[in-house]
């Protein structure tokens, strides 16, 4: 009985954590390569959610099919944002970068309110709350899919960054911009690509969240802050760190909720965050002097 409850809590925590991980990967990747904190990150999640909502309402396309379209649109959008806006403040003061991206986030919230009205939207899917029972554990389908997708996307990105030529050039730019330029890497193109991939992953995260969370124009702010916490926890710019940090927070919140009641679960993640900050301020996966 107790084992069953614990196992169920673990599964719930991992599922929630997978979503957190997916939401955070794009942020940490953009930071790792460009040292830019994307303050419009949450709005990218929001756009992903609305794209999937639009595809469903206007075209009747299932969110799990439209997610591919969302990825492509968000990639193009991210690359465009990088080229038109972010590239121009790459050398500027960090606060100018932050205010520029906050301006973008305000603009996106405004556009969302304009096109979709500030009312909460939900995707009416037959399987939104459906679960399957496996070995006595109830697995919620949308969250399970989101968890699996985050595993797949994180692994695919990892292989892409480690093995492919383009991936290696991205990592080279993250290591040293000048050195990458010297060996003939087109740094501007790599930045565009990275921002595009970051936006695409984040948009996909939003699309996968759409079946299980209400969609509003201002939903992004919450996700932004959560992603910041996960990314700091897992060391900023560290790809696997964000992934594991997301899972850790998901599991910790699930067990915190089990032990202390549902409404204090965020406090648990905050406590972890503060402890990590005090004991290992570079984050869980940071080197001592980075």
């Amino acid at each position, binding site marked *: 009985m107790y084992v069953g409850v614990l196992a169920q809590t673990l599964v719930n925590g991992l599922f929630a954590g997978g979503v957190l991980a997916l939401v955070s990967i794009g942020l940490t990747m953009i930071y790792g390569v460009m040292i830019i904190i994307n303050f419009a990150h949450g709005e990218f999640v929001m756009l992903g959610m609305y794209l999937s909502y639009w595809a469903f309402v206007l075209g009747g396309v299932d969110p799990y099919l439209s997610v591919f379209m969302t990825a492509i649109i968000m990639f193009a959008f991210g690359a465009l944002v990088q080229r038109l806006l972010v590239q121009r*403040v790459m050398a500027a003061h960090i606060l100018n970068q932050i205010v520029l991206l906050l301006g973008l986030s305000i603009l996106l919230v405004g556009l969302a309110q304009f096109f979709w009205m500030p009312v909460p939207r939900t995707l009416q899917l037959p399987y939104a709350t459906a679960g399957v029972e496996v070995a006595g554990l109830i697995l919620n389908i949308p969250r399970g899919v989101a968890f699996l997708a985050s595993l797949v996307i994180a692994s695919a990105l990892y292989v892409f960054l480690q093995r492919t030529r383009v991936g290696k050039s991205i990592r080279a730019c993250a290591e040293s911009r000048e050195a990458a330029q010297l060996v003939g890497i087109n740094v501007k193109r790599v930045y565009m690509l990275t921002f595009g991939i970051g936006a695409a992953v984040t948009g996909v995260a939003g699309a996968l969240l759409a079946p299980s969370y209400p969609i509003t124009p201002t939903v992004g702010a919450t996700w932004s*802050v959560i992603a910041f916490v996960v990314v700091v926890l897992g060391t900023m710019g560290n790809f696997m760190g964000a992934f594991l940090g997301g899972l850790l927070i998901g599991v910790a919140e699930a067990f915190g909720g089990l032990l202390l009641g549902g409404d204090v679960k965020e406090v648990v993640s905050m406590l972890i965050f503060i402890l990590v900050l005090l004991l290992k301020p570079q984050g869980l996966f940071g080197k001592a002097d980075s």
Partner: protein
Amino acid sequence: MTETLSPPPKIGHKAFLWPGWFWDILLDWDRLQVAGSLLIILAMAVLPIFVTASYYLGIIVLTALYAYVGISWNISTGFAGQLLIAHVIFVGVGAYTTIVLLDRFGISPWLGIPAAGLVSGVLGLVVSYITLRYGLKADYAALFTIALMLAMSLLFNKFQLVGAAAGLGVSFHGESLKMMTFVAKTPYLYIALGLLSAAVAVQYLVYRSKLGAYMIAIRENEAAASALGVNTALYKTLAVLISTAMGGIGGGFYVVYVTFVQPGQVFNLSFNVAIVLAGPIIGGLGSLIGPILGAVVNKPIVELLRGALAAQRGGTDLIVYGLFLITFMLFVPKGIAGLLYGPYDSMRRALQRRG
């Protein structure tokens, strides 16, 4: 962001009809900025003669308050280069201090607002200790303060003494100078302008003192400042202390004026942009007049957009404001003060040649 200090130049006053002190101010960028700030404050003080609508007076009160909070942030971030992005934490904690003292203990805001400065200052010391002790660098310190803001929001949401999620409000028992409650907006305006004038003075004194020189040295090159014998930890802490204590006082006045506070309202990224970030960055971070210029431009723009476009389809005001911020960052990266400095400098050179 950095203007070099130049000694007041000697010029022949006789050729001009203006008195000497006029040239002393005109030819010294720092003094000119202070004079400009005081003129703006004076203009805000006489505005109630022409503007009587409560709605517009309310905007002026908040503009003065936002300028004040902007100055408080300018000292730690603009002068000393400490990236305490979520400065709103200290404003929020100050607001809560004042309202808890008022609501739970019946203590007048005249005492509650200084107490807010004390509490926020202590919190600022703690934050400063953490960032120094653990060597949190720029981006990390920035995100740390944002995470701290979220933690505060969660904490205040759970804590019954501060009203939990519902927050706390000022109960109105009629007009009373002793309890800082007024029916009209003008008394609030004069309190806000008093705070703002004090902030302008404090900012100028800090800037012109050794303290300010050390802070700017730390901002420009911390390693070099340290090598020259500047106690960087001490001056960073002092900058944060002054900044956060002033922020807390601003929060105390904020809650007295808007009469209620909730966790999600103050520990909030959008509120942080509105009350802390937008003004100084639009006006010119690190300059003396920047926070005031920024607030005077930003706050009315936000309010007028909201007023003018409220009848339009939802979101229009946010679209315009977002575009405004983006355009501003792309084309006026050093803020209005940075924009004005170029023409000012050539004018000064021309005058000096003539003199």
